């Protein structure tokens, strides 16, 4: 008996190393910092923005960056910095609302078709092929065109197209997990299907989905701003990065800061989500 206890004591790895390791990676830290600051700006833009984003000052139209207006002013004399900060609320909201329903639907559908296979799985396969054939943006624009422009319709459109990617990932991972004996063991122990799928398979299969989710949030911001730019998403005068870039487009040669500053915000936030996703991929890699 003594030798066995010795082996098991030796085989117990220290628990917290993974988190410590991830926190030591500069990329993950920077990403977490960016997302933290972005979330703060999104939650209380009023605290950080120096001025009302919609305050019009005809005496200060298209002013270049200065101490009074660090990001300059737009064609109506609105403070660009305040508008970029207030846009955080909308754009960060996009990162969540454009992805969370796709994630939930995708995870459930993916887990079910992965577990049961059969006819449903074949139909699902065809559906995925059909949807993936179209460029994402084109399909979303088509749905928005049918529903009409606006933020809510944009979320619906992105969810309708985006869940397929989550489901595809989840299905593959569930099938891979079913190769492990603990899945068969669940059946053999007489557990119900839903118990096996949602308590045993899903938590083990969800890691790649979570990592993809981070990337997808970056994509959602990009997509949301694109639609805002095209006039299909957020509507002016709402401060939203895509809308801001579109507003500055006509003045790109004379007032470059109008489009540049929101552009930088998009890049930074996207980078933040990608770095966090990368770090999470390491952190969540299954233990032995």
């Amino acid at each position, binding site marked *: *008996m003594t*030798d*066995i*206890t010795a*082996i*098991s004591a030796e*085989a*117990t*790895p220290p628990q917290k190393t993974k988190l410590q390791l991830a926190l030591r990676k500069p990329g993950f830290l920077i990403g977490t910092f960016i997302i933290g600051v972005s979330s703060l700006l999104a939650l209380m833009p009023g605290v950080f923005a120096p001025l009302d984003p919609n305050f019009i000052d005809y005496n200060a139209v298209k002013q270049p960056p200065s101490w009074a207006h660090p990001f300059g002013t737009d064609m109506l004399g609105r403070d660009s910095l305040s508008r970029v900060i207030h846009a955080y609320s909308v754009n960060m909201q996009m990162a969540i609302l454009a992805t969370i329903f796709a994630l939930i639907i995708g995870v459930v559908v993916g887990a079910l078709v992965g577990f049961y296979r059969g006819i449903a799985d074949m139909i699902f396969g065809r559906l995925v092929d059909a949807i993936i054939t179209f460029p994402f943006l084109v399909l979303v624009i088509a749905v928005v065109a049918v529903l009409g422009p606006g933020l809510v319709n944009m979320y619906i459109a992105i969810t309708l197209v985006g869940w397929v990617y989550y489901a595809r990932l989840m299905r593959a991972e569930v099938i891979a997990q079913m190769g*492990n*004996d*603990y899945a*068969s*063991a*669940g*059946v*053999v*122990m*007489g*557990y*119900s*299907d839903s118990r096996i799928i949602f*308590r*045993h398979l899903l*938590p*083990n299969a969800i890691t790649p989905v979570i990592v993809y989710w981070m990337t997808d949030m970056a994509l959602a911001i990009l997509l949301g701003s694109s639609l805002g730019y095209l006039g299909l998403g957020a509507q002016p005068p709402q401060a939203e990065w895509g809308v801001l870039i579109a507003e500055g487009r006509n003045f790109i040669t004379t007032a470059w800061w109008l489009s540049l500053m929101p552009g930088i915000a998009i890049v930074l936030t996207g980078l933040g989500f990608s770095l966090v996703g990368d770090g999470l991929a390491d952190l969540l890699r*299954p*233990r*032995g």
Partner: protein
Amino acid sequence: MTNDMPILEVRDLCTTFSRGGVALPAVRDVSFNVGKGEVLGLVGESGSGKSVTLRSILGLSRRYGDVTGDVRWMGQDISRMPERKLRQIRGRDIAMIFQEPMTSLNPLLTVGMQLTETLKAHTDLGRAARRDRAIEMLDHVGIPSAASRLEEYPHQFSGGMRQRVMIAIALAANPKLLLADEPTTALDVTIQAQILDLILSLADELHMGVILVTHDLGVVAQTCENVAVMYAGRIVEQGSVRQVLRTPRHPYTVGLMRSVPQDVPPRTQLYSVPGTPPSLEALPAGCAFAPRCQNQTEACLSARPTLETISEGRAAACFNPMAIAQGEVA
């Protein structure tokens, strides 16, 4: 030995998978009984259909393939039973443990959670009682300081310990039959004997029948009362361990026995049955073992020998069985 009615009767079990339209007969016409408290060994090479036989008994194969034949549990046909009803038998009456302790536990749930889950599914025990029973089971399978290890995750256990946990989970609801699918193959040699002893002593104590799948005749010799030797999906020889090992009739059984090194001087080459098992997609017309068989004749290549009863509980499928004198190998 048992004299009362068998608890499990398997009759003409056939399991066929298909891959790309080609039928793969993984199990063919397998029949055997398991009595109360009996330990039956199911022996054969990799791919001989042992594991699929086990999985077919519990209805795990029917999702992936075509299963025919009768599987009677306590006289009740469970081979055509709907999943919902079968669920009550799985885990409570018949339990199963797997070969690979590294993957047979859910890595994300504590050992305690996985133990109590079985109890929750099959007993009326309350929360505290389930916990007590879980500690009792871990203790029973020889895991030291069981109470504190309930909160630990599978990766904090070694391979042998995980297999013990798996056994504890399987036996938690007091099943009457345990299907053990090569339970020691993935373990260190020193741990193998401990796990086998554990399974057997628990089986004895709980009056539980066991079907032990293994490719090691040595293990069968030590542990089982009856044995069935499988080759290419069929039983080629069966009987009591004593008879089969003393007077093997099928050349394949002899080959398996010779593969277990016994009293050989160091550095002698170990015996192995020449050739490899046939692919299930292209089984020969005659006896599946004929291409590798030393006793092969014309008849073996054209017709397939059926499993003929030799004496009470003893059968072999061979046109040219080994002479009784060959029994000295055992």
